[in-house]
């Protein structure tokens, strides 16, 4: 049997890659080590959060699955940063790990054009620098037109606990030991990364009375823009907050040399933003305590996830550490914490389409590209699937720009800057974050989703209606004027705002900091959906700032329109600084804009490059 696309790995990247290709009517095979681990969440039981939550919304806008599946399996939903501005609000769900897997597996099994097969991929079939299939460890060969690698932490995965190091993936699964050496032979630079996970605690052994309850938001919130609220879970299960103490810190300091990290057993580079608890104690020795969250993993089993306590200490030290915590004195550890090392490729060797530069029709997404996080993986998987499909169909690729999505920021960072430690999305990585909001992911991306073919006409028409309504309400506010009449100024007094001296449109009036759109009900009919009102309100209240961001973005886009040929001979261009030349040769940016973001490439080099291009074009 010949497939259009083979996806290697059934994690969050692999799932989105499979579903997008299959939904675009390509014949797909998913090869996974163990069907039971499809859509597994091997680490934290939550999805979303700042930046990441917006990625989930973007995935939904483009026609991916993560948002809907999270809605179906959430244990609590929380809107974060509600006291800050609109640009940084983000949704986060605690997800039921079991339900999440079950629901996702159902979706995959019900999907046409998609076969699932258990197995480990050993090598790729390469013909003339083009991938044409995979070879399993059983020597079985399966042919396809394209391959998407979403191997997670399985490439030469090794689990570290104390001084022991064992080959394997997250659940003691078999590691994939042949694929990364094979990739290295093809010319990929292999890097070694590390991550870790905290211990799991048996719920019945916890004394919750000593802990602070952390609830989610009261309203029923969903990630998906589609009307799936009926399917969405309405659970509101709390998390709990506790702190480490002096005793905990002393135990850690006393056993420091026994941890994999400090004992010198780790070769991989760990993420800066996810230090283990021993790292925190050492690097921030002046802090008396560190906060931890106890989070439910599922309603179907008893494990709680101890967020903030990831470690690579031996088991007996972990026991001591956990028991030093208030409320966990008698806690039973159901799964010990561990660190995991794995191989990844140098993300500078892939194109913004996520196709590798070395091998045609070979795509990579997720941890193999050096990222961490379910959401980052899913976003890349979706784009890899979309671009593999578009290429099979002979269409232009979909490359999201930095001013239109966090997924665009993520992929651009990966292919332009590369990674040194596992890459996590942060709002601070987005220079136009006021444009990349939680509320407007559909306005930014639905059009693309529909053009690609992942958004149905029905959903698209609903979206168009929403857009119309937004415009209608905006125009209504622009056209309605209030004047300094006595009765109007009396109304204003009740709103605690100063009286009018001249007539003013409601559009301008709404810009007063103390006035909300709902206040305007006094003057006009506000019979609109909440999301429409929210959108209009944000656009008006922050108009000046949004405009500024858009102007900045336009400057960037001007350079983005200028393509650089992939076969450009940088050595033949006189006067480019040698450091810039090396970087340009390594990364081979697709546009002048991308070139300008490479560190070590100066504005002067960009001018010379543009002059050269022009000259060549003549």
């Amino acid at each position, binding site marked *: 049997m010949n497939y259009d696309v083979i996806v290697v790995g059934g994690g969050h990247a692999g799932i989105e890659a499979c579903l997008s290709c299959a939904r675009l009517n390509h014949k797909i095979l998913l090869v996974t080590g163990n069907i039971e681990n499809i859509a597994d969440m091997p*680490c*934290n039981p939550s999805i979303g959060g*700042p*930046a990441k939550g917006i990625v989930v919304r973007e995935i939904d806008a483009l026609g991916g699955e993560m948002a809907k599946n999270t809605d179906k399996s959430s244990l609590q939903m929380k809107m*974060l*940063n509600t*006291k*800050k*501005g609109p*640009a*940084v609000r983000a949704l986060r769900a605690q997800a039921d790990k079991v339900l999440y897997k079950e629901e996702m597996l159902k979706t995959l099994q019900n999907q046409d054009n998609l076969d699932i097969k258990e197995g480990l991929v050993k090598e790729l079939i390469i013909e003339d620098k083009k991938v044409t299939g995979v070879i399993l460890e059983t020597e079985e060969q399966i042919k396809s037109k394209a391959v998407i690698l979403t191997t997670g932490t399985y490439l030469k995965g090794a689990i570290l606990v104390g001084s022991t190091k064992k080959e394997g993936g997250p659940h003691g699964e078999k590691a994939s030991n042949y694929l990364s050496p094979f990739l290295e032979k093809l010319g990929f630079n292999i890097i070694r990364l590390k991550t870790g*996970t*905290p211990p799991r605690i048996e719920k019945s052994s916890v004394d919750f009375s000593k802990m602070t309850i*952390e609830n989610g938001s009261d309203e029923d919130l969903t990630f998906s823009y589609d009307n799936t609220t009926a399917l969405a879970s309405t659970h509101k299960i709390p998390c709990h*907050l506790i702190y480490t103490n002096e005793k905990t810190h002393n135990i850690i300091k006393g056993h420091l040399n026994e941890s994999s990290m400090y004992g010198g057993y780790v070769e991989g580079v760990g*993420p*800066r*933003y*996810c*230090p283990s608890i021993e*790292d*925190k104690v050492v*690097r*921030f020795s002046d*802090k008396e*305590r*560190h*906060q931890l*969250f106890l989070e439910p993993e599922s309603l179907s089993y008893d494990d709680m996830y101890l*967020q*903030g306590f*990831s470690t690579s200490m031996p088991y007996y030290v972990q026991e001591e550490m956990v028991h030093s915590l208030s409320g966990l004195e008698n806690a039973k550890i159901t799964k010990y914490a561990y660190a995991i090392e794995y191989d990844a490729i140098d993300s500078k060797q892939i194109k913004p389409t996520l196709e590798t530069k070395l091998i045609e029709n070979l795509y990579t997404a997720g941890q193999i590209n050096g990222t961490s996080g379910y959401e980052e993986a899913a976003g890349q998987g979706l784009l890899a699937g979309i671009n593999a499909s578009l290429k099979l169909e002979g269409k232009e690729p979909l490359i999201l720009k930095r001013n239109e999505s966090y997924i665009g920021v993520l992929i651009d960072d990966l292919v332009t800057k590369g990674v040194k430690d596992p890459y996590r999305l*942060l*709002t*601070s*990585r987005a*220079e136009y974050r*006021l444009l990349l909001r939680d509320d407007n992911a559909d306005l930014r991306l639905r059009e693309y989703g529909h053009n690609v073919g992942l958004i149905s006409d029905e959903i698209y028409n609903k979206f168009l209606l929403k857009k119309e309504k937004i415009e209608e309400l905006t125009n209504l506010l622009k056209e309605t004027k209030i004047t300094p009449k006595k009765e109007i100024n009396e109304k204003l007094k009740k709103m605690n705002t100063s009286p009018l001296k001249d007539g003013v449109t409601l559009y301008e009036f709404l810009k007063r*900091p103390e006035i909300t759109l709902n206040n305007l009900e006094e003057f006009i009919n506000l019979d609109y959906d909440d999301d429409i009102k929210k959108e209009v309100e944000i656009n008006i209240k*922050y108009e000046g*700032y949004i405009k*500024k*961001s858009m102007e900045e973005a*336009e*400057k960037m886009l*001007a350079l983005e329109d200028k393509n650089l040929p992939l076969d450009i001979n940088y050595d033949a261009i006189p*006067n480019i*600084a040698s450091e810039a030349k090396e970087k340009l040769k390594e990364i081979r940016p697709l546009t002048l804009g991308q070139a300008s973001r490479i*560190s070590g490439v*100066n504005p*002067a080099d960009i*001018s*010379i490059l*543009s*002059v050269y291009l*022009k*000259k060549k074009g*003549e």
Partner: protein
Amino acid sequence: MFNDTITAISTKLGNSAISIIRVSGKDSISLVNSIFRGKDLTKVDSHTINYGYIKDGKEDIDEVLVSIMKSPRTYTKEDIVEINCHGGVSPTLKIFELLQEKGARKAEPGEFTKRAFLNGRIDLTEAEAVMDMINSKTDRSRKEALSGIEGNLRKYITTFRNKLKYILANIEVNIDYPEYYDIEEITKEDIKKVIEELEIDLKELIKKSEERQIIKNGIKTVIIGRPNVGKSSILNTLLKEDKAIVTDIEGTTRDIVEGSIIFDGIELSLIDTAGIRETDNIVEKIGVEKSLSLIDDANLIIVVLNGNEKLTENDIYILDKVKDKNPIIVLNKNDLEQKIDLKDYKFKHIVSTNTKEINGIDSLKEEIKKMFKLNEIEEDDYTYLTNDRQLFYAKKALNNLNDAKTSFNNDEPIDIIEIDLKSVFENLGNITGENYSEELLDELFANFCVGK
């Protein structure tokens, strides 16, 4: 093709009859229109010359002729506007600065030519010349980035940036890790403090640097006084030529006359003014108003009084206008009996002169030297912005600070205020050539304990 609009003074800066300021780019017409009083330039035909005034807010700066040339039949193939203004250094620079304030970027040497080439207007042989020029520019800016700014200025700017960096990283960590309760949530008071401190420091740096620029570009000197106290005689003695019309009839010097002298290696641009007094004569009234407006613009104000007379109402009127501007008071006609009495005023610089004797105004010259410390100019303070590019970014940073202050006063959320603070940080980085995004992340993870 290019997104920004550039501007340059195309004629030699000096005392020619007219100067030409050229603007090229997609916004050039609307940009000039925004400071133009006359026809709506966005609606006039291409290749037309339009009469009117360049204004700064409500105030006219100069009477001008504006040529509108629309793309593509222009030198750069972009929309081009040329402003023909009066040839004095002052109006030319003022208009040039105003264009930059409105968003035009000061063109790099040869940039019009570069655009002409890139937009396909000039051919390859010409382009080779452009390449040479770009190269020299590159080398220079590279050297500058490596060595030029190192030292005092870099240290000074870095202190600013570090203050900001900590605040920014703290704001970012509050956003990206909202539930870390032990990390102090930055308050608006913290931000306010930093904004205020920075504003003072940055204003001081800009002021100091502009003083250096003044010395480099010439001290703009205004001579004022009521009619017939001898202003023009003093000017002419300085210039040693009859440029101003000197008569004994009150109010005959109606035009503002410029001349310049080189003074211990420093250029003094002298501007004579119409006499200031209350008048019903419309022509003269315009002159008087213009004289008063020049006071705000000047680097040095010389007030001429007649020592032989008691203070008149007009003198008092003038002295009131300048008393906070640190002028040099010249008591002229000291060859005659001195009847003047200044004991109600506290001026620091008072000299006594006459234009009848050969060295009659030496005391004035000495006072100017003293005032601008011309004798000690080679001092070793390099903590100032040495070129227009640096000054441009410093002013931009100051604008960003003001925007941040406005957002602050409007009670916007912290992450909205941060947008402008980030721009301050970025523009300060542009002065020293530092890239910001990675730096901020490093700061974030180095200073705040977050993670799973």
